[in-house]
Each structure stands twice: as structure tokens, then as C-alpha cells.
């Protein structure tokens, strides 16, 4: 089968993607972890026998783009293919060969057809717990982050290794749920194998080689063609972000040459003492995500679409942290890689770039509810979406990662903590020809009568979301307890009856505000998204407030 008929290729390719979707559905359905079920902190991939990624589930997290290929290689290095058996399954949560922190467990299953290795299925999910100090960015010691498993054979010839399970059980807090999630991944990979073999039977394929060549060839060609529309040259960007103490510089230099892009992160600051260091696999994933959005966003992720891209960074800069740097909160810094790389192309791809968004904010809340029962819950909230050419940013919608919120009624029932208000912040969206999305203000009151411990994963306090192409920044992030500011990546106590105010940043604007359509400014004033003063100050437009209900 030298060349595959184009009709058949499309159908078979769709089927491979469909297999990853079905695996993803099974994984989500059977997972316990809320972050998996609501925010899809997972990925699912199908590989050929050489370890080339052919299809990745569309619901995979941006931070897991292309990480699985490294995981497969890592497993193959430790377990020669000749020693693999049908029914084997390998796992690892090594931050440098997985997705950058120990909370994601990776699963690799070799698939055999008539006793011959034809490919691999892969999945990973964020585990409900991995032991150690628990999910936090305030960890200075890698060994305190949790249980660390190198590549191990969890299942040999269809039988689970009881000693590995016992090690996991005795190291984690909610062992029933963790084991449940491990088995959800096992089920997902078993399903993947079955679907892959059924598919091969149906199309009478003896291996995935020729199909893989065609998929990779077409994807690589499409990617090169899209990159070739960017003039050869060097595209750079730098940004300041806040670290644990003091600011950090991130830098990238992208070299576009004849349909390829090489990204180097030299110039970024050194690793720090806390757990916000980023292993290179995660940096690479967030950069791949940015480059896909800039080129062919709908092209399915596979070995080919990543082929024309290469990445480098100096050892132990914060975007290439080496062991034993702590990495538990690697996303706190790693999420910036996407706007960093995207920003380099602001002038080259004006219709594709997005101003910075107000990123998602996480607060891990621990304490007691009324009656004294222990509780531990994550509160999520998002800032405004960065504007794009032709499009105002949506309110309260984050990039590059987004989280579905817990409804107010559910939160209050679960925790006893009262949310006094949750409102959009007028004038928070960065001014621009297209306005940044509005941030929000959330006011919470500790009503249960016991002190609460809050672990914050906030950002953009010292450096607000930037605009692009002349657009203005949005307003910054802020936490205050009883009116006093607290550190965005710190840990604080909220005493009984005290109030926490969370200000989520507005998204950056796009283009010169003076070019904004005056009717859009008037509509924003009517809807209360922009104040009359803001309209005058940022857009130079005087608006007389129209009465409620009048159509703009």
C-alpha cells in the first residue's frame, strides 16, 4: 500500500481520531478527579509501533501537547520492545518524562496483533492525590511533592503487579479514589486496544506503517505550508512575570526558516527555590500549543504537525528546570509560555494573535465546615479573555488553560463559605480597537466559624495582562484579606468572619483604542462594561447614559 486512496485516508484518519475520542469519553466517565471531569486535565494518544503519535484526543489539555511521545520513548528505553508482551501496561509520573509534575500519571499500553507489536495506546490524567505535601506551589523540596514513580510495569501479561499497587496505596491520601483513577486509565487503554484492532480488521491492515506515513506526511506538509506564509526571520519576545519573591523574566527567540520554526528560550531567568519551575516537556507543550493556534489550529496533533517545530533552552533556566528542582506548580509559570511565544508573532500574524487573557485563578481551601467536619476544596475563577482582531474579549474566560467553575450554590452548600458577590468589573478590560474581556470581583466571607487555610495560585498581580498591537493592558489581579493585600502565590489564613476579595484581571486589548467603533463604545457604556469616564479617558468619546432597556 504505497499510496492510500484519498477518500479512504480521510475515513481511516477520522476513525483514528474517533478512537481517541471514545477512549477520552470512557476516561472522563470513569475518573474520580474533578479536575479531569470538569477541566479535562488529561490526554489520550494512539501511536504506531515506532512510537510515532498518529492521533491525539481533541479534549487533551494544552500542557500535554506532544508530551506523550517523550513518555513512550522513555518507556521503550527502559523496557526493550522485544521484552514487551500482549497485556502489558507501563506507568510513570516522572515530571521530566511525563507532563512536568508528579500529579499526572501516564499510562502506556503496547498493542499486539497476531503477536506482533503494531502500536501503543496512551493516556494520562491528573490524580486526586499523589501524597507528599499536597497540591501547592509552596514546596521547596522535590521529595516533598509526592510519590515519584519512574517507568514501571504495572500490568504484566494482563496481571496487575500487587506490589506496585501497594506502594501507591500506602503513599496517597484518598487511596480508593487514586486506585479508581488508575483503573479508569487501564480501562481506557484496554478499550483503545480493542478499538484499534477492530479498526485494523475492518480495513484489513496488518500494521499502521503506511497509514502513519500518510497521516504524518499530510500533516507535516500542511504545517510547513502554514509556516511558509510567515516570512523567514527572527521573532522575539520577552515578558516580566511575578515569581515567589520578585519578578522573573521569560524570553524567547523564534527562528522561522523555510517552513520550520525553532524556538529558543535563552534569556529566561534561572530556576527558583519554590515549586514553580518548569520541566522542558511542559515548556515545549505550551509552545507547541501557541504555534498550533498561530498556524493550523484545526490540524489534528500528531508526529507530523509537530515535525517542523524544534525547541531549546539553557539548562536550569526556569523553562528548562532539571532534577531535583521542585515543579509541583509548574503551570503557574508554564502557562505564560503560550502568550510569550504568541506575542513574538504579533506583527507577523496580526489576525491570529491574541492579547493576554486574565489567567485562571486557583485557591485550595482547607479547614472545617460548620459542625467540624474537615473539608478541602478548590475554588476557580477566571479573568477576561484577551481581545483579537475583529473580536472583543469575552468576560471571565481564561487562556491558555480554562476551568469550569463550581456554581455559587454548590460552593456555599459544600463549604459553608458565603460568596457575598461575584460581579464583572467595569473598565477592567484593556482598551483597544477591540476591547479586552472583563475581569471580575469575588467577595467571600468565612462563615463556618473556623479559620481556613488558603493556598493561592494567583498571577498577574504585578504585571497585568498585556494588550497587543497598540491595545492597552487589562487591570491586574489582586487578593485582599480584610483590605490587606496578600501574596498571589502564597498561603494565608482566613479567620472566622473575615472577608477575602479576589480581583480577577481584565484581558488585554487589541489595536489602537482610538480606532474603536464609537457605537461599540456606546453599547459598552449602556451595558455598564465601560464607564462614561472610561469611555472619555480611553476612547475619547462622550456618552450620555441612556435609560435602561433602550435598544442601542
Amino acid at each position, binding site marked *: 500500500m504505497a499510496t492510500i486512496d484519498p477518500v479512504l485516508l480521510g*475515513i481511516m484518519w477520522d476513525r483514528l481520531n474517533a478512537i481517541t475520542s471514545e477512549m477520552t469519553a470512557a476516561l472522563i466517565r470513569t475518573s474520580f478527579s474533578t479536575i479531569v471531569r470538569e477541566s479535562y486535565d488529561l490526554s489520550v494518544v494512539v501511536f504506531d509501533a515506532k512510537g510515532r503519535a498518529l492521533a491525539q484526543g481533541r479534549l487533551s489539555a494544552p500542557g500535554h501537547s506532544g508530551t506523550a511521545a517523550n513518555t513512550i520513548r522513555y518507556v521503550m528505553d527502559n523496557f526493550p520492545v522485544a521484552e514487551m508482551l500482549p497485556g502489558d501496561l507501563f506507568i510513570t509520573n516522572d515530571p521530566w518524562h511525563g507532563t512536568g509534575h508528579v500529579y499526572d500519571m501516564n499510562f502506556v499500553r503496547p498493542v499486539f496483533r497476531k503477536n506482533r507489536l503494531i502500536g501503543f495506546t496512551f493516556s494520562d490524567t491528573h490524580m486526586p492525590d499523589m501524597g507528599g505535601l499536597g497540591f501547592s506551589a509552596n514546596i521547596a523540596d522535590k521529595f516533598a511533592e509526592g510519590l515519584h514513580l519512574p517507568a514501571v510495569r504495572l500490568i504484566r501479561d494482563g496481571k496487575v503487579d500487587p506490589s506496585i499497587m501497594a506502594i501507591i496505596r500506602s503513599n496517597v491520601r484518598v487511596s480508593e479514589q487514586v486506585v479508581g483513577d488508575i483503573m479508569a486509565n487501564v480501562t481506557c487503554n484496554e478499550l483503545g486496544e480493542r478499538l484499534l484492532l477492530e479498526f485494523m480488521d475492518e480495513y484489513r491492515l496488518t500494521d499502521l506503517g503506511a497509514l502513519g506515513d500518510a497521516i504524518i506526511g499530510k500533516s507535516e506538509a500542511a504545517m510547513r505550508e502554514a509556516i511558509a506564509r510567515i516570512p523567514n526571520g527572527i521573532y522575539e519576545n520577552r515578558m516580566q512575570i511575578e515569581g515567589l519573591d520578585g519578578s522573573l523574566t521569560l524570553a524567547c527567540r523564534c527562528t522561522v526558516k523555510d517552513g520550520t520554526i525553532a524556538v529558543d528560550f535563552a534569556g529566561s531567568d534561572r530556576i527558583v527555590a519554590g515549586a514553580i519551575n518548569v520541566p522542558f516537556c511542559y515548556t515545549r507543550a505550551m509552545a507547541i500549543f501557541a504555534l498550533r493556534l498561530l498556524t493550523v489550529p484545526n490540524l489534528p496533533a500528531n508526529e507530523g504537525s509537530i515535525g517542523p517545530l524544534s525547541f531549546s533552552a539553557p539548562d536550569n533556566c526556569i523553562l528548562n528546570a532539571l532534577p531535583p528542582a521542585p515543579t509541583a506548580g509548574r503551570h503557574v509559570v508554564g502557562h505564560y509560555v503560550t502568550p510569550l511565544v504568541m506575542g513574538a508573532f504579533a506583527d507577523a500574524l496580526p489576525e491570529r494573535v491574541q492579547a493576554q487573557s486574565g489567567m485562571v485563578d486557583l485557591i485550595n481551601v482547607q479547614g472545617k465546615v460548620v459542625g467540624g467536619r474537615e473539608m478541602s476544596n478548590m475554588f476557580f475563577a477566571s479573568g477576561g479573555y484577551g481581545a483579537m482582531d475583529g473580536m472583543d474579549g469575552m468576560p471571565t474566560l481564561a*487562556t491558555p488553560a480554562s476551568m469550569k467553575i463550581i456554581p455559587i450554590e454548590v460552593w456555599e452548600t459544600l463549604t459553608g463559605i458565603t460568596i457575598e458577590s461575584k460581579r464583572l468589573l467595569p473598565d477592567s478590560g484593556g482598551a483597544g480597537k477591540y476591547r479586552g474581556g472583563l475581569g471580575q470581583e469575588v467577595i467571600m466571607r468565612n462563615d463556618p466559624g473556623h479559620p481556613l487555610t488558603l493556598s493561592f495560585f494567583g498571577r498577574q498581580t504585578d504585571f497585568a495582562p498585556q494588550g497587543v498591537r497598540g491595545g492597552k493592558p487589562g487591570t491586574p489581579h489582586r487578593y485582599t484579606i480584610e483590605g490587606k493585600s496578600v501574596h498571589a502565590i502564597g498561603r494565608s489564613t482566613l479567620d472566622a468572619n473575615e472577608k477575602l476579595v479576589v480581583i480577577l484581571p481584565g484581558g488585554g486589548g487589541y489595536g489602537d483604542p482610538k480606532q474603536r467603533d464609537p457605537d461599540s463604545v456606546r453599547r459598552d457604556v449602556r451595558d455598564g462594561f465601560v464607564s462614561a469616564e472610561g469611555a472619555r479617558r480611553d476612547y475619547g468619546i462622550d456618552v450620555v447614559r441612556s435609560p435602561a432597556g433602550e435598544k442601542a
Partner: protein
Amino acid sequence: MSYRLGVDIGGTFTDLALLDENSGGVTIHKLLTTPKEPAQAVLQGMIELLAMAKAPVQEITALIHGTTLVTNAVIERKGSLCAMIVTKGFRDVLSIGAENRYDQFDMRLRYPEPLVSRPLIFEIDERIGPDGKVRKALDEAELRAILTKARAAGAEALAVCLLHSYVEPKHEQRIKEIATKEFPGFYVSASSDVLPFMREFERWTTTTMNAYVARMMDLYIQKLESGLQREKFAGRFYIMTSNGGTVTPDTARTYPVRLLESGPAAGALMSAHVSRLLGLPDLLSFDMGGTTAKGALIVGHEPQKKYELEVAHIHEHKTGSGFTVKIPVIDMVEIGMGGGSIAGIDERGVIKVGPRSAGAEPGPACYGQDGQLPTITDANLLLGFLDPDFFLGGRMKLDRAAAEQAIMGRLGKPLGIEAMHAAWGIHQTANEGMAQAFRLHAAERGHDYRSFAMTAFGGSGPLHAARIARILRIPHVVFPVGAGVMSAFGLLVSPLSFETVLSRTLAIDGLDDKTLDAAFAAPIAEATAFLERAGLSRKDIRIRRRLDMRYRGQGYEIEILLPDPSGKSTRVSELGDLFGKEYERVFSTSFLREPLEIVNFKVEAVGPAPKMQAGYRLLRQAEGAALKGHRMVYQPESQGLVSCPVYDRAALKPADMLEGPALIEEKESTSIINAGDRITVDAGMNLVAEIGVAERR
């Protein structure tokens, strides 16, 4: 003599089916929908159909009505100017939304604008806690000021949406009372009435939608009722809701949001009926029309329920780009794949079909209305699956040359393949896309579709069903009688029903049987009262109780159906087992050692199913030979055109057996079976296909 009449208003056609309750004979009729005055087509259709069946209007005992009017009003934004009153601090709940992106790779994703504009959303000082206790009393002076402002702004409807009103509705009810008494004329919807579910964003979205369409539905029902009266209609008049049950016009006026997607629900209901008649307990109901395809799983003869529906998608049919409303619905999956779906070449350089649709204007290229883009219908025409002279029974001539030109230009040339091959590519890519959506739908719910049968209907469903079944390894496909007006048929078999929910968190530890019964008492009384008001007596009302349960502290629930309470009521001690069984089915794992709690109490009151024990048959039999002739049809197994017999469905007789490939034509659609498949005509004139039977022999 007595008759039941089912009338379904769709986007293009209004379908009618008249059942003779004594003989089981059914007469059907189809006419164009009259969008400006939808009642007109209903009345005209009824008069025409009664004439065809020679039935006097006085002998209609019941008229059951399904409609897409509510859905369309939301999609086209044709509802009332609506104001909203919310708890102080929460004016922006609708704009803030769920804060998640439904597509990671689509930077230009969009969300629907709320149905109430922000200047008309008013905050009122009041607060009720999650325990139902009043923390801050309602400020009635402020309320009156708000209502005065809303009226001055021209609002016709009012949505009342307060936090935790599902536990304690009294503030919402007081607002409703003052608004109704002191400001008459507002169409008022309170979130604690519409469906008292926990989760403010969805409950409030649902409530605003209810308020938004209330006036329009009220006027429509009024018009229809007076029209029916003029025609001397003396039977009962029921309206179909999304959950497959019917309600009285008064209930429909109060809860118009529950009428969303009632047509498709009726189709699924009909599939459940077919499942019972044919003894096929598990089946996939497959409906494919002009712009979308829909699938629903029937398990153990029952359509599956859910309490959430996404409607009015505004961005490429993508899940997440519509309004999420909480109402009881039949669980269905919808795909942007219909006869009008446009085919092209995507970023990868391979064929992609949908979700963009050519719609009715310009429509597929073969409609000859200047459509330049190839669609699924164009492909089906070129492949010989459709007869250019017998589309919609010959009402519309199709242009084969235009179809070929569009397909060749957009797909054939760029891919370097023949038009016929490209057409097959469109057809099969669409089949794979639908099969994928059905697989996912089943996988998400923990069902294995491989043992299911399929029912196929809608204008395009019977053209694609046999191939999709082959992909899914589904062994049997039923092309039911009346497939072209399936929803109208479904209306004839729908019982009166009403569902309600009580959101109340209760731990199982320490719960006693009395408390469990007491929690169910209020929703049971409410649901029963609705049916009694519709004229049913208590002994005819069946109550179904469901519980949403979960492990304490987990964010997701499992629904369990409690055994029929007519004998003994369920003991608290049984709940653990019931939960465990369902948990194991969904999670494929044994359960955890964690305490359990109940989150929602759901109650459904159902009246008796309409009698159709004689089955039903279509009064449209033709005389003469069933074989109409032969047509060249593309069969990929032969890599080209094959002469294929064409049968007239109306002339087939029970026990007739046809070997594939074969085409069976009726006015509304064409059914296809392929080489290796076989069709048997059953006693009720359904076509029952065995897929791949030749390969299994």
C-alpha cells in the same frame, strides 16, 4: 368511531397522523409550515386530513401537538423584551457563565448573548442561605421601584432568579405575587417554579428562556384553541414536551421552556414504541433530516432521560456554544449532519462534511437554486440513491448535472479522483461522522451499542442507516412504517406526564424511611396535581421516583431509579445496593468506602399510555407489483455502478423478502440496503433489515 390526531410543526413541514383507535388504521398528511401563522397549517392540515380519512371532527378524542416554535423563537431571538430580578451581588451570573472554553483550539469561539440585556437585570437586596434560612429579608419597597423601572423600559416578561430558591422559594414567590397583583400584564417566571434545581447559572438561564417565550406561546395556543373551536373540535388538546410526555395547554403556558425540541422527542418515543412492538429492547433511534442528525438510545424499551439540554448553538453546531437549560428531556445526541450539509476539503487535505449547511436556500446544488457547494444530498443523487424524478414523491426535480459539477469542482479535481468516487467519499465520511457521534454518546453513558438494533427515519435517515449499522456492527435496522412523519406518530403514543425535582442534600447515614418518604411527598403531590387537573383519576397515575446520589464531597452524581412504590415504599437500607449496582455499571469498578448522600429527588407522574394494542398500519397501500424498475447505484464493494432493483414501499406485502442491494421508495424517503443485507416485511409493514447477513451465513 374515535380518532387521535398527532400534529408536529417542524421547520419546513407540518406533519399530521390520524389514528383510528378501533382499527389501528393511520392516515398521514404533510404540508408546508406557515411560519408567520403556524396555527394556520395545523388547522388546514387537520381539515384536509379529515377529508382524506372521511372522519368527522367531532370524533377526534384527542389532538396531540408537538412544535419547534419555542426552539425557533430562541434561535431567531423573537421572544419578549424581558427583565430579570436577581439576588444582590449576582447581576452578572448569565454573562460570567461557566468560565470554560468548549474548544481549546478555537480561539474565536463564541457564546450566546443572554436573553436579557444587562440594563434590564436588577439586583434586589435579599439573601437565603443554602440551608433555606432567610439571612436578609426581601426589600419590598426596592422591589416596587424595580418593577416600575422594568415596566417603564417596556419589559413584557419578568424572570425572577434568586440564590438557593430551590430550597426556600418564598422570596421568589413573594416577588411573583407582588408583580402579578400590582403590575398586571407581566409574564412572570420564577426559577423555583420552572425547575427547582441547584446550580444558579443553568436554572437562571432556563428561567429567562421560559419568560422570554411565554407571551409568544400564550398567544399561539390561544389562536390554535379558538381555531379548533371554530372547526367544532370537541376533544382534548395536549401539547408534547421534551421528555416525551404531554401536558395540557395551561401547563404549556406556564412552562413553555419545556416544549423545546418536543418534535425530536416524539421521534424517540416512536422508536421506543417500535422497540416494544418488535421485541427489540435496546435500540438506537436514528433520525436524519435536512440540517442535523439525531440519535437516542432506547434501553429496555425506554428512551433514556436526562435533565439538561443544550439549544440554539451559535457557533458551528459546537457543543458549548448554545444555552444550557435544565428541563426533563429525552437524552439525544445531535450532529450537524443532514442532507444539506456541505462537503469540502479540510486543512489536512481530506474530505470533511458539515457542520455548515446549505439550508433550504440555496440548498444543495441539485436543487437548481444556484447552490454551488456540494452537499450530502448531491452525493446521494450522484450515487443513484435518490431518483431525480421522485424526490419528495416527485414534488421537486433534482439536477444531476449540477450535483456532479459541484462535487467534481470542489472535491474530485483537487483530490484527483472521479466524481463518483468523491460522491462516495462524501456519503461514507458522513456515515463515519454519525457513527462516531453515536459511539461517543453510548460510551459516555456506559452502553455497548454493538448489541443494539437501529430504527431509521427522517428524510435522509433511511439512506444512511444500513451503512452506519455496518460501521457500528449493529445487526438489525428497522425502517418503521410512517418513517417520514415519525414525530407525528410519536405524538399518538405519548402519555400525559409531568416531572419535577427537589434539590435537597441529605446524608444516608441516620436517614430513616419516614424522612425519605416525606421528602418525596411534596414533589409527588405537585406532579400528581398537574395530571389530575388534566382529567386523570389518581388510580391511573403512575409515579416514578429517581434519586441523584453521590459520595459525600464528590462533585458528580449518579441517578438511580427507585422500584415502583405502588406496593411498599423503598427502604433507606436498599439505597446503598441500588447505588452500588448503578455505580458499577457506570464506572466499571466496585464502589468506595465513603458515606453516601442524596442530592436531588426527582418525580415523574405518568398517565396511561394510549392504547394501540392492534398495532397500527398505514392506510396507503398500493395495488400492483412492488418492483418499480431498476436503477444504477454505486456499490463500493463492486467499485462501481450496479443495477439495483427499486421497490414501491406501499406495494410491499407482509413476509416479502428482499436481498440487497435494493432501494425501497416512499414519498418522504428512500431506504437502502446493500449487498449482503436482507429485508423482511413484517406483519405491521415495517421493513426489518438484517445487516451483513450474507457474510454471517
